[in-house]
């Protein structure tokens, strides 16, 4: 029973971080209808940003997170303004091609600039933990979980309560109507993609605290983010966190009670199940 409790906690903590990874992907997908294949690469770049902030400038990782997010927002904003806006209304294949190309460029630039060495963001408290009735709760993972939930809640509030947020949702729901009401879609798209990149950056930084960063972590994380975004629903931030939790817990349980080699079967099996049961999810109108 104690072991079960521990696995559940492990799964929940991991799931929070998963949710944060899916958040940016879901947002961009929901509003821009772009399946961002460079999402994992953005996560990776965010990880490096925080790594260098911590190792070179000595900024505490959790305090440095907003800075890393800001840098990633600027990158995302520029990418959308200069590149993606050119093709955002063209066939889906074009956006897939462009984001795939960006992924390749980012990954190889990262290897050229940062080498393939393993990096970890390892502040003194990274391995510390607290034991609650036999269940070990690591501080860093708990912090990452907290940040993930906080960011999801913030995103929810921004989308729901602010003028810009409403413009984002309006653009997603009905582009023509939004334009008639004076929304500038290009600007909204840039803000949305920038926000997606910032969220990816936050996820990458936290990933570096609990795991590690290399130029190549992105590929599997893109795939995971894809699954999570679909599980959670594309434009519902809290739903995406829920999707992350489902995946995290399912993987943790499967690793113990089935076999650790089954984790990928679980994540992609869940994806297939959702698509069979609620195909509308993929169309962004769930």
């Amino acid at each position, binding site marked *: 029973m104690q072991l079960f409790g*521990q696995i559940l906690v492990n799964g929940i903590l991991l799931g929070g971080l998963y949710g944060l990874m899916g958040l940016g992907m879901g947002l961009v997908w929901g509003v821009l209808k772009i399946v961002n294949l460079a999402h994992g690469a953005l996560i990776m770049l965010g990880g490096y940003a925080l790594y260098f902030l911590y190792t070179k400038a000595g900024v505490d990782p959790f305090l440095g997170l907003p800075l890393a997010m800001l840098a990633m927002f600027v990158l995302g904003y520029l990418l959308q303004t200069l590149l993606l806006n050119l093709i955002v209304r063209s066939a889906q294949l074009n956006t897939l091609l462009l984001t795939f190309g960006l992924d390749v460029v980012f990954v190889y630039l990262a290897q050229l600039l940062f080498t393939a*060495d393993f990096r970890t963001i390892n502040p003194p408290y990274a391995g510390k933990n607290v034991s609650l009735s036999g269940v070990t709760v690591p501080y860093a993972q708990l912090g990452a979980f907290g940040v993930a939930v906080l960011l999801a809640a913030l995103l929810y509030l921004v989308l729901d309560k602010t003028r810009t947020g409403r413009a984002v949702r309006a653009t997603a729901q009905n582009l023509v109507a939004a334009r008639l009401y004076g929304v500038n879609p290009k600007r909204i798209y840039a803000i949305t993609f920038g926000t997606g990149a910032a969220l990816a950056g936050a996820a990458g930084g936290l990933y570096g605290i609990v795991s590690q960063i290399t130029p*190549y972590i992105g590929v599997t994380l893109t795939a995971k983010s894809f699954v999570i975004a679909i599980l959670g629903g594309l434009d519902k931030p809290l739903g995406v966190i829920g999707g992350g939790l489902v995946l995290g817990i399912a993987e943790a349980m499967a690793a113990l009670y089935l076999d650790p*080699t089954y984790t*990928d079967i679980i994540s992609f099996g869940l994806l297939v199940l959702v698509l069979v049961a609620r195909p509308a999810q993929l169309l962004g109108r769930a």
Partner: protein
Amino acid sequence: MGSTKLAVLALALALSGAASGQEKKITLGAAVQLTGRLANTGRYYGDGYQITVDRINQKGGVTVGGTKYQLALRIYDSQSDTNLGVRQYVQLLTQDKVNFLLGPFSSNDALDDSSVAEKYQVPMVQGGGASTQIFSRGYKYVFGTLPPADDYFSSTIKMMGKIDPKPKTVALVAADDSFDVSVANGTRKLLKEAGLELVVDKQFRENNADFSSILSLVKSKGPDVILWAGHEGEALNFIRQAKSLDVNPKLLYSFTVGVPTADFRKALGKDAEYAFGMTPWLPEKELKDDWFGDAEQFAKEYQARFNYPPDYHAASAAADVETFAKAVAAAGTLDPKKVRDEIAKVDFQSLYGHVKFQPNGQISLPQTVIQIQDGKVVPIFAEDFIGKPRYPIPPWSKR
């Protein structure tokens, strides 16, 4: 004017003729992971081959049947994609017409790539695949300079029989790729022979990032020893998550990879301390070499040129090139079949160790048990203790 042009042309022709006459070349080809998720270890092969080829050429090349030859390298980047690597090996043989083949990193890749060598009957000496699967297929053209994966933990288990307090229970955690499956199979057998009880035996998916479930299970069983087999990135995650979940073996833990590697220790910092591991190679003066002098000098030159220290992968790569230099000279011809027969017979001392292949094509080298102490790799146990282990390792809460 016309005659001047002609003269220049004639001179150029004469020069190029002379140059090509001088430049008798033996080309060695390989597809190595210079980018992609295995790039971190793949670079040892690219760099290890290059420095050895350059050194052999600098020392006059290889004499084959009275003629001097220079060595040349043709390396493709397989981008850590096994299928791409196989295609590149086919290209090396069919289009580039290289003379002989060197290997890629990792057993999974060597397993597939060596089939190309066997099909075209061109010898491959590879220093990156240790799985016994590679050598159990009756292939004649594949040779390996990494010791058998089955035996990776044998010196460690021998040490466990002689150390006080003596471990009784073991948790075995291994990845599901060719190398680690081979390690796990061999280790189960060795543990049984040594009378040790296996309390956890879990396989994980290659490239796995989350070990929390396995670690929690290990914690609930409280084994004396954790033996772990996988790739470096996974070892890194395992140790970091063991710390954050406060999972401690009662006596020791040991890892097949990572411990001898500099950037692994750097990435973990203090958390790397006390980890046991193994290596078939250490940069020691006693390992004499025809081209580099000795292993220590090799390590120095390697560090100076590539800006990171070599580990056993790089030394194994160097031994592969040297094997060809020896075998081709002995064969006195570039005929692949004759060179293959000479490789099977080589018997020489190198910076990597004694190179001599068993009938199945694989080398046999003992693994020295090592431990990270104060950020350095300290040799602990070969046939007997050669260093003082920090044992039992302290729990995370007391570090």
